C-alpha cells in the first residue's frame, strides 16, 4: 500500500522489551507487546513502566511515519510525556497507537492510546511532546 512509509519503528530499547509493529491502520502503525515476565509488575499485570514504554514507542512510530510521508528528516528527542493509567493491564497482548495532534517545525504534540481487547476501552493514554532536531553532519 502506498500510504505505508518505510520506517524503523523500533528503538533498541523497544526491541529489547519485545515491542513489535503489529499492523498498519489508516497509515498509522499499531504497536504491540505480548505479556511476559519482562513487562510484569504485580503478578499477572503490566508494570506501569512497561505500559509507558509501549505508549512512548507508539508515539515515536506515529511521528516517524508522518515525517517519512513528508520526506522530512529529523533526530527525535523526548521533551516530556504525561501518562494516564485508566485500567490495569492484564496478562495478554497490549496494543498502542499514536496520533499527531500538532506537527510543528521544531516540536510535535502526540496523543497515544493503549488497549488490550477493545480499542474503545483504553487501559492508558499519553500526551507527548517530541523535539525534532536537525540531523547533524
Amino acid at each position, binding site marked *: 500500500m502506498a500510504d505505508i512509509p518505510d520506517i524503523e519503528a523500533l*528503538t*533498541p530499547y523497544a526491541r529489547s522489551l519485545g515491542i513489535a509493529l503489529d499492523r498498519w491502520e489508516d497509515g498509522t502503525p499499531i504497536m504491540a507487546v505480548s505479556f511476559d515476565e519482562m513487562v510484569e509488575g504485580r503478578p499477572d499485570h503490566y508494570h506501569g513502566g512497561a505500559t509507558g514504554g509501549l505508549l512512548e514507542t507508539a508515539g515515536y512510530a506515529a511521528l516517524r511515519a508522518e515525517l517519512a510521508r513528508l520526506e522530512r528528516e529529523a533526530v527525535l528527542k523526548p521533551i516530556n510525556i504525561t501518562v494516564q493509567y485508566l485500567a490495569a493491564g492484564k496478562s495478554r497482548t497490549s496494543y498502542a497507537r499514536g496520533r499527531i495532534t500538532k506537527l510543528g517545525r521544531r516540536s510535535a504534540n502526540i496523543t497515544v492510546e493503549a488497549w488490550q481487547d477493545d480499542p474503545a476501552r483504553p487501559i492508558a493514554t499519553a500526551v507527548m511532546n517530541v523535539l525534532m532536531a536537525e540531523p547533524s553532519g
Partner: protein
Amino acid sequence: MSEQDRKFDPAKATAFFTGRGHSGWLGLRYSDHGDDWVELELPWREDLLGEDGQRVLASGPILSLMDMASGMAIWRAMDEFTAIATLDLRVDYVRPAREGASVFGRSQCYRLTRSAAFVRGLAHDGDADDPVAHIQAVFMKIAPTARL
C-alpha cells in the same frame, strides 16, 4: 519515627521486587532512602538505547525507574505495603543521560491521603543538582485501608 520502628525497608523491598518481572529485567538496584523518599539505580545497558545511531538511553527505562522509585517512596512514607496503582505520571526529560552512566531515580512522597499518594522526583546520572529528568505522579491505593 526511628529507623528501628520502621516496618518497610526499601533496601530489602528493592531486592524482593527486582528479583523478577519488569524491574528485574531492567536490573534496578537499591541506592538510598530517607523518611519519605527512595532512590533506585538503573545501570547502563547497551540494549536500552533510544534512537539508532545515538548513544543515548531511551526515555522508557527512565519512566519505569521513576514509577518504581515512586511506588517505593509511597510504601516508605506509609510504612506499610499495600497495593497501589499509578494514576498519572508526568516526566520532563530535561537533558540526555551521559553515555555509560547509571541513572538514579529519586522520588519523594510529599502527601498521603486516605486514597491517594502524591509524589515528585528527579532522575540524575551522578549529580542530583544536574538532573536528567523531573517527574510528578499520583498513585491510588487499590484497596484503601479502613480509617487510615
